[in-house]
């Protein structure tokens, strides 16, 4: 086979994919989104009905996210993480995503430090809430709004 023919074979395979590079290009359908009330209900379930107190939780998020597919967040909870006083769980809730729950992190004194970092999807501009449940059952929370930009030719 000549070199030219070999080059051609490679190109033909590529041709199949150009312009149809997969489902990643499809926009999200406008399905029903959760409401802040539904997020509130989810939080009530976590806390056993109690309203989380402000404080002890630091939520780090960008004010503006370039793309809702990947928004990095960190949650840090002020806790000695001893047997007597530690963070049992951190819940991250995005109020107006199709499903408000993002992730739950289960901690213990084995962690030494109550801090996690992850990336999440945000369907639109909305408030993100981080709720920490302590060993004694008390709950604390922090929240922040994130503006999600939609690019003109996101692709």
């Amino acid at each position: 086979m000549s070199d030219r023919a070999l080059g051609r074979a490679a190109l033909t395979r590529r041709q199949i994919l150009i312009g149809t590079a997969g489902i990643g290009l499809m926009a999200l359908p406008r399905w029903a989104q959760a409401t802040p009330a539904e997020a509130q209900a989810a939080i009530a379930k976590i806390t056993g009905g109690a309203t989380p107190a402000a404080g002890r939780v630091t939520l780090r998020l960008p004010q503006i996210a370039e793309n809702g597919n990947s928004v990095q967040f960190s949650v840090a909870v002020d806790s000695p993480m001893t047997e007597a006083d530690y963070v049992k769980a951190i819940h991250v809730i995005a109020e107006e995503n199709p499903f408000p729950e993002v992730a739950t992190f289960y901690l213990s004194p084995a962690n030494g430090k109550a801090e996690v970092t992850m990336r999440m999807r945000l369907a639109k501009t909305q408030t993100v809430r981080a709720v920490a449940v302590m060993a004694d059952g008390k709950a604390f929370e922090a929240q922040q709004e994130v503006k999600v930009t939609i690019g003109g030719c996101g692709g």
Partner: protein
Amino acid sequence: MKRLIAGAAVAAALLFHGAAHADDANRAKYSAGDKRSGYLYSTPDTQTMQDDDFQNPGGAWVEEGGRLWSTADGGAGKSCQSCHGAAASTMKGIATGYPKFNPRLAKLIDIEQRINICRQRAMQAKPFPAESRELLALTAFIKNQSHGLPMNVAVDGPAASFFAEGKDAYERPRGQSGMSCASCHGDNEGHRQLDTVSQGQSNGFPTYRLSWETLGSVQRQFGICLKSMKAEALSPDTEEAVVLELYVAARGNGLPVETPSVRK
């Protein structure tokens, strides 16, 4: 209209946010004359994601490419390494010159084609399909060996005619919109739309785009742009895709290789 204004305000805030963060060192590192890498159009969060080897999602492809580099495949029982040895030395700087005129084939080829030619000819292995995990991984791995080195594709000598074709492909109005690549990614900032559109360079490709949630080639990006322009997809049989690739690579000449870059 209200939405448009809101969009413009957010875009402006974004631009300001990104520009304010990019310290002088970054500005120097990611600029060459009037050229500004797409890196400088990213928000601080996206920049951080690219900068940290571990947080950069493209790192997985580079690692995978490293494994493929030394894994024998095909009838000849060879790997890339069998002929090319340690990529850290033999591939350093290579990708800065691609796409490149290949005298033996008497045509312009990109890295992906170079890999598949090696696979078929030297390894007697099947070529990897376009945008496949393997081809992206090897391309990213090879280009990553030039990380930080300035792009330096040849646009003269035997490449001159391809470069001229590529420039024409970039500037020629296409499809229903009558737009060209240059309409959005032109040298005149006034041409830009509401979005924070970068200058049309490929020093960061293959790139991990947040909108794709995966690594993709510059030709995949062409597909996205052409679709937005309501223009026909590029047919590689005409080699237009590769000459366009040369032209956008040349637009980035002097800018550092960022592969795998992270973009919105």
